[in-house]
């Protein structure tokens, strides 16, 4: 079975600063995907970024980037130039390559961006 661990229950950052959220996972699979989802107070889950395990290059989406360390089974999210709208719960998630969207989620990290 896969496990995903987010060891930071809460984080805070000043507007325009950079923050990194940590995630580690455990699996024996070779074909898998990793995700970061954002859940703002509206409760709507939003996909932030996705990484395919077979790709060595770290995924980036505008101000969001990941540091994917496959051997260490680590998948951290870096948010640059933090904005007030980034305030949300962030979930790290894992999916096997054949899972049809069955995700294993971490515990979540509440991120607060202060003005």
């Amino acid at each position, binding site marked *: 079975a896969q496990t995903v661990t987010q060891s930071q229950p809460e984080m805070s950052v000043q507007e325009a600063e950079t923050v990194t959220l940590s995630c580690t996972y455990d699996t024996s699979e070779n074909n898998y995907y990793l995700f970061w989802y954002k859940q703002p107070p509206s*409760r709507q889950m939003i996909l932030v970024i*996705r990484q395919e395990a077979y790709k060595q290059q770290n995924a980036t989406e505008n101000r969001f980037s990941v540091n994917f360390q496959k051997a260490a089974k680590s998948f951290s999210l870096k948010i640059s130039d933090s904005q007030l709208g980034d305030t949300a719960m962030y979930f790290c998630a894992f999916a096997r*390559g054949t899972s*049809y*969207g069955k995700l294993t*989620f971490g515990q979540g990290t509440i991120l607060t961006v202060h003005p």
Partner: protein
Amino acid sequence: DVKVTQSSRYLVKRTGEKVFLECVQDMDHENMFWYRQDPGLGLRLIYFSYDVKMKEKGDIPEGYSVSREKKERFSLILESASTNQTSMYLCASSPRGQQLLNEKLFFGSGTQLSVL
């Protein structure tokens, strides 16, 4: 715009009641999921369905059942609600195809269920 709609945003029920949580998607997706979200535990998969009338148990199916009679609708049923089923319930859908290569999960806005 794609939509996954959950019938209730908040729901309060009594212990022992039969509870139905409804989810409808308008994207013609084959796959539908029910997750439960609890503080400190993240989201956990209860059941999923990959086609009409097809279902599989997720990680925590005990105390729940599901129904998928039409492609667009996936219902979660609590046969006899208990206080430990007080939680946020999230429905999601995704298309079949190349698994997650070019797809993503589309989530509803959740139903906060309180069982008293």
